[in-house]
């Protein structure tokens, strides 16, 4: 029997796992007919999910938490049993702003803390506040940008102007001079670099080595009522993600995503994030960043509750929500490792035994216990060396 599922997505490189699940037949093999519904704004994607026009969505992880906490229009409990990717963001700025930073772009990207301080020092020299585009108030991009700016004493709500620009309009907004730079998911940073409008200033993966990005979000009641469909979809996505991460498939994947009904950008621009060969400035040879965007490696899809709580801590830090035990519990419960485990119970995929970990504590690949054999956790450090203990949110918040 075939189950039909409608899933809303935004045309971004990190929608790859969903696109491949359909186009390479992984969904079909699990008995799922996948109907991918393209949205052009996060607001519309959210409404389609919240009001039941789709069963699931390719959603910004902080947005799923914000909707659950009632911070983004109609409140609805959402559940994310699967992470579609980690990393994949890039902060780019117009040349006149990038000029204040280390002219050696590779050194600049390798040292986010130094770059943040250079940026902070230059703010006074520019005649006006820099205007930086973020894709949404509740985006991982905005959260990381704020974290990066604040590390050098820049108050993101006072010293710069953060302006919401949907991903597909970022390059146009740069060209029109409406923004001085932006942080967005690929391929948009690369597209702005290619157009000669901007150069790379910071890479998401260098800010948080394993930064949570998009999740597969469901309405919680629907998730609870449809365990078979949810489990089948997760199994299909796990196989699709492995396919997407395989270097042998990167070229084919870039071509697949370049189609007009998917990302609709040139395959060679999309391919950079996939292969981790990033053009940081139009006149430079590509820089190697193998972990620029990950779909499958090291149990990437596993939704650690501690990651949801880290995102929550940042929403609290920027006064978007008040910290209470109830809010923390709601935010943490958006990530559903229990569902992930249930879906893959009969598979040979190694799954972490724990649901929480101290975030930012792993400096180099670490072998850990799992339900089935060896699992390696990738480095997950924050560039400023902070660690987040999910059992001690108050202490973490007090440290800022």
């Amino acid at each position: 029997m075939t189950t039909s599922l409608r899933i809303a997505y935004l045309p971004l490189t990190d929608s790859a796992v969903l696109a491949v699940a359909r186009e390479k037949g992984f969904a079909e093999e699990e008995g799922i007919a996948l109907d991918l519904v393209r949205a052009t704004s996060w607001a519309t994607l959210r409404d389609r999910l919240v009001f039941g026009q789709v069963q699931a969505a390719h959603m910004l992880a902080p947005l799923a938490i914000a909707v659950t906490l009632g911070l983004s229009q109609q409140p609805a409990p959402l559940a994310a049993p699967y992470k579609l990717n980690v990393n994949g963001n890039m902060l780019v700025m117009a040349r006149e702003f990038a000029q204040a930073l280390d002219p050696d772009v590779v050194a600049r990207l390798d040292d986010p803390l130094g770059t943040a301080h250079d940026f902070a020092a230059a703010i006074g020299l520019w005649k006006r506040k820099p205007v930086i585009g973020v894709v949404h108030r509740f985006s991982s991009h905005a959260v990381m940008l704020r974290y990066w700016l604040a590390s050098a004493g820049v108050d993101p709500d006072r010293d710069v102007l953060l302006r919401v620009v949907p991903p597909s309009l970022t390059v146009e907004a740069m060209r029109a001079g409406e923004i001085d730079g932006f942080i967005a998911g690929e391929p948009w940073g690369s597209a702005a670099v290619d157009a000669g409008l901007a150069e790379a200033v910071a890479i998401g993966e260098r800010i948080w080595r394993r930064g949570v990005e998009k999740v597969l979000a469901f309405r919680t009641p629907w998730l609870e009522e449809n365990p078979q469909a949810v489990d089948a979809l997760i199994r299909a996505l796990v196989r699709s993600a492995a396919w997407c991460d395989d270097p042998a498939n990167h070229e084919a994947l870039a071509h697949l995503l370049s189609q007009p009904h998917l990302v609709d950008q040139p395959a060679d621009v999309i391919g950079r994030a996939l292969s981790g060969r990033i053009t940081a400035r139009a006149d430079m040879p590509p820089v190697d960043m193998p972990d620029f965007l990950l779909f499958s490696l090291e149990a990437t899809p596993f939704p650690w509750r501690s990651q949801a709580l880290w995102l929550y801590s940042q929403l609290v830090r920027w006064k978007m929500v008040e910290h209470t035990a109830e809010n923390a519990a709601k935010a943490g419960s958006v990530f559903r490792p229990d569902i992930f485990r249930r879906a893959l119970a009969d598979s040979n995929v190694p799954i972490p035994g724990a649901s929480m970990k101290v975030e930012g504590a792993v400096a180099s690949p670490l072998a850990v216990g799992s339900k089935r054999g060896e699992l390696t956790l990738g480095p997950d450090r924050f560039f400023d060396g902070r660690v987040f203990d999910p059992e001690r949110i108050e202490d973490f918040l007090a440290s800022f």
Partner: protein
Amino acid sequence: MRIVIIDDSGLRATVLEEGLREAGYDDIHIVPPRGGFVARLERMAPDVVLMDLGSPSRDMLEEMLSVSRALARPIAMFVDQSDESMIGAAIDAGVSAYVVDGLRKERVKPVLELAVRRFNAFAKLQTELDEARTALSDRKIIDRAKSILMSQRGISEPDAYALLRSGAMNQGKKIVDVAQALITASDLLGGGL
């Protein structure tokens, strides 16, 4: 009640504005979602904002609404969870609305219903236009294929058409596809017009 329509398509906005005026609303403004539209909107202090659900600028508008003081706590219109069919109709039609909190639902409902009807009417018009445009380009392709046949084989126009038609029938294809194949082949062979 001040209503602002945010729309890229001048025609659709006009279709909607006309409908609202006929229904007796007269404080209506159209703002295209470009440049500093958010600041402009803020100065207008509308009671209801109508927007195309498919416009990427919706995220910018919503951000403005969440930080603005001009519109007191605006809420998305399909918050009326009691009316599932209305939510569905609005999303299918591609209409989103933001309404100042406190405005009575029964006052806003007719506005949204009208917007849904007009957006649907516009979408139908658009489809018909697209079909007409396709028909026009189909005819051009067929005309070009006919003239290739007429000059290459020295036959009359009706005969050329009959030839295309029987070719299409034999292959189970549309005439325009056979015509397109003929043009491509003719171009490749250097025998085009």
